[in-house]
C-alpha cells in the first residue's frame, strides 16, 4: 500500500503508528498545547449541555405555554406558585446556568470566527463575558431571594399574591 500525500494531511489522535514521526509536531493534536484541553472541554460541554437543554427547555415551554391557560396564565402569581416548589427552582437555575454558558460559548466561537483584529476580538469577548456573568449572577440571586407573599404598607397581602400565601 502506498501512502499518498493526502493521508499526511489528516493526522488523527490515536493512530500514529503507520506514519509516526512523519508529521510536523505542530500539526499533531496530542501533546501539550495550552488551549487544547480547554477547547476539548468546551466541545464536550456543548454536546452534554445541549442534550440537557432540549429536555429542560421543552418542559419549560410546555408547562408555561401549552397547558392551562397558556400565555395568559403567566403573571407574578404564576411565577410565585412555581418557585414555591424547590424542583422548579432547581429546574430554572439549571436552565439559566446551562443556557447562558452554552450560548456564551457559542457566541465566543462566532466572535473568534468573524472578528479578525486582535483588539476587536478582545473587546467583543470582554463584553460577552461580562454580560454572561451579570445575567447568571442576577438570575441566580432572583431565584434564591424571591419572596412570593408580599405585604402592602398596612400589612395586608397584595392582591397579586398566590393563594397559598393565605395559609402562611
Amino acid at each position, binding site marked *: 500500500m502506498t501512502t499518498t500525500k493526502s493521508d499526511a494531511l489528516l493526522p488523527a489522535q490515536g493512530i500514529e503508528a503507520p506514519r509516526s514521526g512523519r508529521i510536523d509536531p505542530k500539526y499533531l493534536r496530542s501533546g501539550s498545547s495550552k488551549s487544547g484541553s480547554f477547547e476539548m472541554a468546551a466541545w464536550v460541554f456543548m*454536546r452534554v449541555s*445541549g*442534550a440537557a*437543554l*432540549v429536555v429542560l*427547555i*421543552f418542559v419549560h*415551554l410546555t408547562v408555561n*405555554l*401549552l397547558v392551562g*391557560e*397558556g*400565555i*395568559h396564565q*403567566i*403573571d*407574578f*402569581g404564576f*411565577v*410565585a406558585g412555581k418557585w414555591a416548589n424547590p424542583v422548579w427552582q432547581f429546574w430554572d437555575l439549571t436552565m*439559566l446556568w446551562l*443556557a*447562558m454558558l452554552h*450560548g*456564551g460559548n*457559542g*457566541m465566543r466561537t*462566532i466572535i473568534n470566527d468573524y472578528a479578525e483584529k486582535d483588539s476587536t476580538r478582545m473587546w467583543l469577548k470582554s463584553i460577552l463575558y461580562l*454580560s454572561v456573568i451579570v*445575567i447568571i449572577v*442576577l*438570575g441566580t*440571586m*432572583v431565584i434564591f*431571594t*424571591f419572596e412570593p407573599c*408580599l405585604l402592602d404598607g398596612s400589612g395586608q397581602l*397584595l392582591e*397579586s*399574591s398566590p393563594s397559598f400565601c393565605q395559609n402562611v
Partner: protein
Amino acid sequence: MTQTKGTLYKGREGMWSWVGHRITGVGIFFFLLVHVLDTSLVRVSPEAYDAVIGAYKNPIMIVGEIGLVGAIVFHAFNGLRIILVDFWSQGTRYHRQMLWTVMGLWVITMIGFTVRHLMLFLDGWGGF
C-alpha cells in the same frame, strides 16, 4: 444519488444546517438575555413584572413567540443531529437524511405548537 455541482459541503445540506444553527443560536442568545431581565422584575414588584410580561400577550408578540419557538425547536433537533454525527458510528454517512428528518419533525412540532398557542391566545384575549 447524483451530485450535480459544487463540493461535498459548500452550498449543500451540511453548510446550510450550520448556517441555520448559527443564526438561530444567536437569536436565542439575545432573547435569553432579555428574558432573564424581564423575569428579574419579580424582585422589583408584582406590578412591574405583570406590566412587562403583559407585552408578551399582544398579537404581534404572539407571532414573535412562534418565531422564537421555531428557532429553538430547529436548534434543538439539529443539535441532537450534530451529536449523532459526532458520536454515532454511521452519523456522517446519514447526516443528510438526518437533516431532512430534523426538518420533518420541525414542521410537525411547529404545526402543533402554532395551533395550540394561537388557540390559547384567542381564548383569553380581550381584544385591542
